[in-house]
């Protein structure tokens, strides 16, 4: 145990050093780099170092404490940028969670369907793969128009649909692989025991798909957050982190540090979503194969 905590501490120190190094590079370039950036063949390949283009890290940090400019964004009682970012983050996370849930359910159902009937696997799998090879997320501005005929449809639902689209794929593929992962020995044993499809599913296939499902869920969670933010921006849905990024970027020429604060907020959301899956992962440790937790 002591050895393990020691190794974790060592890793944490390494990561801290890496982040500190990145920060140092930023600051050094900001202070010593040419104001108009570095150009090669007339194209700027290193950024401008003016305060408007590259704020100091300390300024970004302080940006969280700055008062929110009234009028541009109205968040009721909120008053600092940090409050705005947190508030927007909660909205985005909620939409992402709905999208994630839909994506996981759809992905699992698809995987079950493909596992049950080979013809579905042959018919659907190429499209499942295709759906992620091509930028169907470009549909986001169009999806916003869906549901306009239904009274119960709210705009955020379109955003969750897009999040679900990015989340379903890793789940469908990971789950399909997991369901077909039990060895022939196990499958034969269940057949010999005259176990039905349902029993085989619950007692053999589902438990053995857990190690495949967990990394898929992590990808799906990150995908749901990305999908939500992209969809917010392309549908113009207010209150979330995506819209906040867009609003701050319009004020960025004056004060870019708010924009950085919002982007950092988006990054933290992605990490939080992935971390949430890790909690599920730890709860399901029993189903990991041997010591290899992937």
């Amino acid at each position, binding site marked *: 145990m002591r050895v393990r905590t020691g190794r974790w501490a060592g890793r944490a120190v390494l990561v801290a050093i890496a982040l500190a190094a990145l920060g140092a590079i930023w600051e050094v370039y900001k202070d010593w780099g040419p104001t108009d950036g570095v150009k090669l063949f007339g194209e700027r390949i290193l*950024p*401008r170092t003016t305060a408007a283009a590259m704020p100091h890290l300390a300024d970004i940090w302080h940006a969280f404490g700055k008062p929110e400019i009234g009028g541009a964004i109205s968040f009721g009682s909120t008053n600092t940028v940090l409050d705005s970012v947190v508030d927007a983050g909660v909205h985005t996370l909620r939409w992402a969670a709905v999208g994630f849930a839909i994506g996981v359910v759809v992905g699992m159902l698809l995987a079950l369907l493909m596992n049950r009937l080979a013809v579905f696997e042959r018919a659907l799998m190429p499209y499942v793969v295709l759906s992620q090879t091509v930028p169907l997320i470009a549909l986001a501005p169009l999806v916003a128009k869906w549901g306009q005929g239904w009274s119960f449809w709210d705009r955020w639902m379109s955003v969750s649909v897009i999040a679900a689209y990015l989340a379903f794929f890793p789940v469908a593929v990971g789950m399909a692989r997991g369901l077909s992962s039990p060895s022939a020995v196990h499958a034969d044993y269940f057949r010999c025991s005259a176990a039905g499809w349902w029993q085989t599913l619950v007692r053999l296939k589902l438990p053995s798909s857990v190690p495949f499902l967990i990394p898929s869920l992590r990808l799906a969670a990150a995908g749901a957050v990305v999908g939500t933010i992209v969809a917010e921006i392309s549908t113009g849905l207010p209150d979330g982190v995506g819209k906040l990024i867009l609003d701050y970027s319009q004020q960025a020429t004056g004060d870019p540090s708010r924009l950085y604060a919002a982007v950092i907020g988006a990054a933290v959301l992605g*990490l939080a979503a992935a971390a949430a899956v890790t909690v599920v992962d730890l709860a399901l440790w029993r189903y990991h194969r041997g010591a290899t937790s992937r």
Partner: protein
Amino acid sequence: MNLRRVGVTLLPPIVFGVLFVGGWQAFVRLEDVRTFVLPAPSDIWHSVTEAHSRIVTAAGHSGLNALVGLLTGVILGVALAALAARLPILGGAVTPVVAALAAMPIVALAPLLNNMYSPLSTLPRREVVALSAFVPVFFNVLRGLSQLAPVHRELMQSYAASQTAVLRVIRIPNALPHFFTGLRIASSLAVIAAVVSEYFGGLQDGLGSRITSSVGASDYPGAWASVLGSVVLGLVFYIAAVLLERLVLGSRATSPV
């Protein structure tokens, strides 16, 4: 592959595709769905033939961004993975940072980079693409380079082979299939990132911009036509990656299709 096998593999997806498009057309026509909700495939096709040359031009801009960014990201990914595999300390420091990057919405960096360079530059977009493509290449190459079967490790040790020899004879050939897996994922992500990063402002010359401006002008079949254009662009990149894999690896290729 004999004719029967071709039939068994290709027939189900073709039948499904035809049924899907046919069902879509029938649904839109019979239910009289309004075009802003869902245009009929025939309307989209009509729009494609009409705006054909403009879509191709926009696809050229987005495609070039995707290509330049992809190449940059692949080179960075391979280089950093090689360093991380060679220097475990560096690997320990960099790998968690890249893993965190993978969970973040990279396209959200687009407005930030626009601000750092210039909103009229293509570079911010290409950097977003490069960063998106870098992640899967880095992880796959690192995995390929780090895997060394115990039997191969002992064998090379018995030959008193240097680390460089192990790298050349075993690690690099071992990592090649992993590299192509990463490249395949990266090639898809590159097109997606190139199109989506256009939604965050900046130059308005690519497919993503065409989609938003068509929606703004209530030309919904036109927007769908540009979506179709980006689908084709994505397929071109993916198929190119698959063909390259086939060409280099031959029978060792693992990719579908």
